[in-house]
């Protein structure tokens, strides 16, 4: 206020005058539209439809891959609000903020409403006939050399089967699944250790959860299901304890009983230190083979403390707690995976579960899916990297994008955007024009998820198996938008008429598939009734017990930590002194929800910052660099730089700087474009040695001050509690002379 030369009193006077004007103008009731607006009327509604009274329809949330069952409140043909579907064992009738915002995505003013074709360097509206002619040319080209790729985000259910069908029919050569927030490293280690990608983690069955950066309450794989488990874990007769070990505090870390800050990338060393201490207890002595015991020897308290920065005495205390609060559960999150030795970190952490013999108690194997072909396919970075090489070599003839935005999320070192120009034909399916779509020759307008049919299968199902059914909650808003499934069916009808001619659209295909699946769900209902019941419930559930998890193989090489004893490559680099942590938030995830003002406006759970990116720095680091909140910084890696405002936060390792993922869009509608910065762009090309996955937390950056300071938009007040003024007088306890106080007598 003082910057603009207007005092607080002046401001109130101006507001007062303005307020009067507004109040008088309000007398005009300009929102009355008698004789102008139409009344919603029906031709022949269902009997239960009453204008003004909401009707709930079941569907599935697709804002993330968790597959939560939802209910949409529909009134006068419009979906107004989403709730959780109590029939869904995943959501249990609950929903998260990201899920709520699906309504805003549906009504987004930036929705693409017509097909677009690139002409003379800009996208121009086109007809579906023109669009399908172009798409048809890539599906059935005269020249069949080169790759014809469909690049999607993580997928499951019948959409995935249709995509495989395209490849079987020769309509495409590859289906590549890419997820910038992939946990492929963890999946790879789990496969080697336990024989499954993702064991089911039962938080509510544990007495103590030791989590290495797993943000299961925030940006985890299934936050609603995890939060429900967590509530039971905390409300148990003996309250469950949560210990979180991570370099930057997550929402889950903020909820932990004990939050332990650790040098980035040294989680594996800490885990091995714990393992060494654990096996010295007689309860766990015989669990590991002798060869493995020897490999734990170097990780004594002193060494572990020196490498990780965690106080050495925490190890025996934590071991005591793990023993006392058994059964425990050790979780691994994104941070330990994102280093050159990510696989080794994950294996070292998983080893703790083996020593603590948690398998069969808190770590189980999911029940077998009745239809394995519907099981989810998680994306990975390696697939994108391989595709990028093929693009660079000119081996790609065409790419069709769906549910992914690699031009935004791929790091600059890949030069994905430039390589994309070498692909003769690019098409993208989008609801809103994003960076990838802007570079395509053809852009197709998708139905919103609240207008479309679909089936989804979640990865981590702890209560039986569930196929989540997605159905439209209302008629489509824009006549020219189309279902991805409908077009896949149309293409397949052309490519394989003998197999697909019976299905006029995706709806017919799904209906037939669900009815065919009836025997697996032990239903005696007639076909139509089974289909109606399925749509009404929103889920196809099959009760099935969890299966025991067995340890497939233990190999000392899996756990070997880098000999340098440091977390990430180049840790001693004099120029790039800080470790960059691109943090994942529950609302922004990989950046696709950034076009939703509800999520931009909802404060970050830890910093309360809105509508912006920020660089989280430890106060001691900031002090050493003479940085204050709001100072504009350049974070420079070997592959680029970003400009962000500083935010001082004690919940971060002093050698690190964290910038949230999700902002910094160059083209993604009016709400996302030009907000904040994108830390993914400046990542270093460091890869996990075992899987080739991008090591997301191994980038080193230099911090430079620009000399500017801009106010950071945030909800919290100044951290000095009195808001810069003496609002409440306080006195230190030792300065109070209690002898002068009137004694309080209990009568």
């Amino acid at each position, binding site marked *: 206020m003082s910057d603009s030369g207007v005092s607080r009193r002046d401001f109130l006077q101006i507001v007062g005058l303005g307020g009067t004007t507004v109040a008088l103008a309000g007398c*005009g009731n300009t929102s009355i539209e*008698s*004789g102008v607006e139409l009344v919603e009327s029906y*031709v022949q509604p269902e009997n239960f439809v009453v*204008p003004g009274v909401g009707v709930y329809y079941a569907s599935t949330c697709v804002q993330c891959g968790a597959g939560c069952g939802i209910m949409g409140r529909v009134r006068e043909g419009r979906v107004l609000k989403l709730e959780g579907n109590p029939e869904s064992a995943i959501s249990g009738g609950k929903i998260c903020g990201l899920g709520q915002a699906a309504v805003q995505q549906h009504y987004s003013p930036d929705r693409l409403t017509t097909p677009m074709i690139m002409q003379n360097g800009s996208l121009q509206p086109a007809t579906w006939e023109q669009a399908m002619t172009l798409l048809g040319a890539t599906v059935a080209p005269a020249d069949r050399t080169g790759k014809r790729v469909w690049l999607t985000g993580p997928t499951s259910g019948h959409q995935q089967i249709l995509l495989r069908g395209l490849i079987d029919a020769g309509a495409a050569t590859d289906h590549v699944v890419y997820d910038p927030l992939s946990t492929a490293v963890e999946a790879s280690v789990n496969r080697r250790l336990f024989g499954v990608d993702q064991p089911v983690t039962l938080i509510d069955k544990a007495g103590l959860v030791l989590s290495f950066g797993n943000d299961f309450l925030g940006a985890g794989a299934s936050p609603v299901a995890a939060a429900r488990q967590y509530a039971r874990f905390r409300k148990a007769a003996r309250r469950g304890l949560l210990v979180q070990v991570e370099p930057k505090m997550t929402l889950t870390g903020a909820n932990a009983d004990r939050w332990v800050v650790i040098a980035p990338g040294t989680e594996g060393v800490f885990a091995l230190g714990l393992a060494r201490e654990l096996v010295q207890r007689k309860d766990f002595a015989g669990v590991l083979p002798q060869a493995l015991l020897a490999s734990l020897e170097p990780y004594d308290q002193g060494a572990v403390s020196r490498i990780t920065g965690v106080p050495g005495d925490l190890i025996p205390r934590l071991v005591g707690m793990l023993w006392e609060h058994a059964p425990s559960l050790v979780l691994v999150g994104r941070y330990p995976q994102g280093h050159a030795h990510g696989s080794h970190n994950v294996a070292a952490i998983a080893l703790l579960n083996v020593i603590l013999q948690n398998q069969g108690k808190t770590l189980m194997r999911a029940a077998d899916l009745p239809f394995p072909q519907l099981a989810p396919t998680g994306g990975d970075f390696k697939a994108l990297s391989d595709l990028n090489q093929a693009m660079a070599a000119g081996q790609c003839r065409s790419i069709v994008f769906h549910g992914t935005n690699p031009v935004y999320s791929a790091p600059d070192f890949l030069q994905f955007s430039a390589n994309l120009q070498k692909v003769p034909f690019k098409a993208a399916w989008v609801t809103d024009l994003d960076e990838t779509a802007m570079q395509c020759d053809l852009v197709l307008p998708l139905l919103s998820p609240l207008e479309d049919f679909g089936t989804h299968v979640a990865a981590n199902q702890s209560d039986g198996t569930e196929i989540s059914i997605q159905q439209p909650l209302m008629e489509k808003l824009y006549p020219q938008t189309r279902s991805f499934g409908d077009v896949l069916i149309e293409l397949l009808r052309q490519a394989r008429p003998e197999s697909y001619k019976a299905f006029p659209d995706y709806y017919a295909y799904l209906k037939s598939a669900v009815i065919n699946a009836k025997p697996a769900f032990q239903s005696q209902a007639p076909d139509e009734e089974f289909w109606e019941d399925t749509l009404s419930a929103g889920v196809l559930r099959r009760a099935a017990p969890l299966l025991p998890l067995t340890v497939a193989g233990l190999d000392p090489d899996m756990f070997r930590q880098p000999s340098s004893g440091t977390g990430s490559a180049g840790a001693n680099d004099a120029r790039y002194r800080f470790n960059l942590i691109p943090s994942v938030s529950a609302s922004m995830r990989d950046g696709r929800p950034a076009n939703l003002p509800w999520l931009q406006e909802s404060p970050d759970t830890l910093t309360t910052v809105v509508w912006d990116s920020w660089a989280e720095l430890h106060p001691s680091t900031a002090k050493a660099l003479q940085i204050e909140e709001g100072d504009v910084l350049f974070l420079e890696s070997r592959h680029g730089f970003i400009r962000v405002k500083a935010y001082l936060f004690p919940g971060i390792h002093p050698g690190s700087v964290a910038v949230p993922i999700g902002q910094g869009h160059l083209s993604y509608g009016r709400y996302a474009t030009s907000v904040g910065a994108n830390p993914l762009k400046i990542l270093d090309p460091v890869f996990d040695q075992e899987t080739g996955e991008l090591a997301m937390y191994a980038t080193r950056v230099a911090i430079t001050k620009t000399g500017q300071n801009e106010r950071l938009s945030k909800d919290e007040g100044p951290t000095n509690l009195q808001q810069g003024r003496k609002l409440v007088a306080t006195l230190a306890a030792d300065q109070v002379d209690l002898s002068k106080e009137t004694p309080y007598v209990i009568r």
Partner: protein
Amino acid sequence: VFLLKAGNILRMAIGGWFYALITGSLAIAGLAFAGVPFQQGGPIGSQTEDGYNALGPVVTQPIEFPHYIHVEKMGIDCLYCHTYARRSAVSGIPRLSKCIGCHQSIESVKDTPRIKMLLDYWDKQQAIPWKKVHDEPDFVRFNHERHVQRFIFDQGRPTREACGYCHGDVGSMTTARRVKAISMGWCVSCHEKDHRIDAVSDKTSHGPNDCWQCHK
């Protein structure tokens, strides 16, 4: 009524010229800030049934629906067609299938221009784009169900009379037109009155006076 009385008292209490000055300046303020509803409310100077200067506009509907034939000649109760009014906050518009339910078997009028239009909409399975006649600002929530319950079902007042409290005697009109002020002061003037709680007892209560009853 309450406002008119207050106006008389004000006129008596102060000199006529001063009253004219105040009302004149208020009128200017009204024109400056809020001229729209006065202009839209029919010809300037036209008054609502209850004496307010806010008669609603003549609304041209896609079909010139004759309420008087249905109500006065045929004796159909308002709630027979406007069935949602007793079930919901909004009264909605009768579904097209309801019109057709009767008219498909009324041979005598099936070739009249308006019924031809109606049947045409039905053949196309297209909803009739009726326009709003009694619209309220978005910050006002009027609940039909509550009023219908109180006056028709609890007090046993005739439907045509009870609906007419707010809508005027639509049963004598062709297409409906707003003939009551339906402004906040007008609503409050009725909420302040004592209304019998049912058809038999002498006990009365008045309508709620809380802001949030209507402004949610």
